[in-house]
């Protein structure tokens, strides 16, 4: 087991390198030239050559990648061509915003899904089940940006501007400069709608999946055995059934976290939040190679780690699954 974990940890390195390399290659094949965009009207051939040389853009692609990698090992994430700012600094400033959004929306999703999924399965074909499944069905069918638009229409425009439609107020301690707004209350007001927009859809998916697996599990013989030997319903549901029902749910949850980080791009765009999502999409569209690399690096790392955790959770939930 420990060997397995160690092996998987070692796998993280090539996977992250692979991802950043693939992104690097893909970005290089995007039509357009960031140097042209940078110089704008002042574009001259000599300046372009100078800038390309300055940022190493005149080197072969492979060499450029390894230069980036070499600097990375020394803790240097590179400098944005377009803004001239260090990439790591920007990433660290925006990371807390996105982390907060994702953690809260995952919390929203789990808080709804686990009880709803269990109740739906245990009280199958009752009004409680029908309510849970119908609401989940609606939740699964609405894209997060449309939930966001509906929330905007109700809470920002409908109820006399109850919640702000865009922008951000930082959590105490995460403010990147002297001028930004910092307040817990303001932060909550700003994060509420985005977290709901992102979390409701995930909640619906997890509810449906958990209900399905629970239905499958509570029909198995070991649950009947547990009932037959006089175990009360609570340990049967929570210890015997839920643990096994969680296997497919955990798989999908791992994938959902990937979806959440991507969904953050959409929700952050809609609500104009200064998070990693807007940072990433702006960088991709502007072809700011260094920023895209930084963005790819941090998301790739987050994902591979999450997938490892998901695989390890399997063995915990079902000891029959073994990794040699």
């Amino acid at each position: 087991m420990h060997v397995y974990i160690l092996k998987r940890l070692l796998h993280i390195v090539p996977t992250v390198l692979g991802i950043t390399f693939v992104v690097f290659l893909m970005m290089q094949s995007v039509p357009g030239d960031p140097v042209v965009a940078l110089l704008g009207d002042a574009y001259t051939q000599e300046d372009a050559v100078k800038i390309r040389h300055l940022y190493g853009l005149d080197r072969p692609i492979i060499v450029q990648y390894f230069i980036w990698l070499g600097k990375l090992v020394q803790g240097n994430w590179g400098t944005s061509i377009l803004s001239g700012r260090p990439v790591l600094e920007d990433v660290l400033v925006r990371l807390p915003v996105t982390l907060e959004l994702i953690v809260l929306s995952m919390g929203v999703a789990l808080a709804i899904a686990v009880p709803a999924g269990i109740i739906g399965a245990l009280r199958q074909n009752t009004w409680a089940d029908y309510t849970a499944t119908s609401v989940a069905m609606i939740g699964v069918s609405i894209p997060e940006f449309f939930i966001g638009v509906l929330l905007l229409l109700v809470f920002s425009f409908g109820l006399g501007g109850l919640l702000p439609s865009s922008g951000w107020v930082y959590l105490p301690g995460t403010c990147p400069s002297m001028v930004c707004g910092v307040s817990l209350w303001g932060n909550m007001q700003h994060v509420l709608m985005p977290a709901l927009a992102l979390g409701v859809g995930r909640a619906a998916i997890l509810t449906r999946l958990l209900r399905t697996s629970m239905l499958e599990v509570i029909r198995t013989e070991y649950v009947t055995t547990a009932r037959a030997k006089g175990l009360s319903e609570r340990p049967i549901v929570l210890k015997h059934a839920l643990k096994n029902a969680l296997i497919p749910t955990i798989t999908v949850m791992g994938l959902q976290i990937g979806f959440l980080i991507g969904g953050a791009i959409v929700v952050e765009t809609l609500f104009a939040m200064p998070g990693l999502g807007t940072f990433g999409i702006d960088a991709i569209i502007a072809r700011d190679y260094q920023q895209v690399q930084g963005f790819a690096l941090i998301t790739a790392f987050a994902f591979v780690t999450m997938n490892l955790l998901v695989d390890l959770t399997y063995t915990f939930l079902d000891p029959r699954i073994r990794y040699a």
Partner: protein
Amino acid sequence: MKPRPISGGSTRETDLLAVPGVAWRARVASPESPLAQGLRRFRRSTTALVGVAIVVTLVLVALFADVLAPQSPISSDQTRTFQSPSWDYPLGTDQLGRDMLSRIIHGTRLSLIVGVSSVLLALLVGVPSGMIAGYYGGRLDSAIMRVMDLILAFPIYLLAIILMVVFTPTAGLIGAMKVTGAIAIVRIPIYARLVRGSVLSIKEKEYVEACRALGVRDPWILFRHILPNCLAPIIVTTTLGIATSIIVEATLSFLGLGTQPPTPSWGWDLKANISFIQANAWLSLFPGLAIFVTVLGFNLFGDGLRDALDPRLK
């Protein structure tokens, strides 16, 4: 009459007819195929039928969009911008004076084509990869899953976004094919991982061991014994998958990276009108509702299918 032997199992219909004393044909329970049984269960589910009705309606709307749409979806009229819903324009007009109803009718095509074809493409690659990886384990498993990890390590939208930036979004059929390809690529690992997870636990079961002990060949074990047992999550995920693909398509369009104008796309319309929602809420509401109803239709349809094909879950 010759006495019939008592031993030898049940009396068959032909034997009965040969017996002169028996005047009626024996009633034999007509064997119903599992598929027919499934179909019968499917027809009993109201929600499933609602789903089918929505999907069939959408397919018809997509096929006959040219006939059904009252106006051209792309011709703009600067004298009729931001019209509220009326008899002439049942869903109003947008900032270019284009008829919203016609745009939504034509948008059906893009959503359906991209949604269905991208899932089929992903399924064809993902399911076999996952089964092989889970069943054989070892190096093959590592190799397949590392490739999947590589794709999975991207947030689905991020990879789709980068792929679309690389493909450069365009209008029309080619544009739709680019979106289909981008969505299919990001969705392959979902099937692979799901199937692998199930196979990992199913292959330890006694009946699989028994098969191996009997000398049943691996492909037969995989397709006849393991695949049917992990089918329920595959079906759930596939039907949800069409719905999700439609959402991803709408999301890419929403970010401006889907099929480009003038091709009508719900996601693009929603995005384009978002700056005006405070005064003209319907402009973003109708494309959003269209996405919602379409996705809902596929979800209901898929749910009904699941209940019908796997009665254990009902």
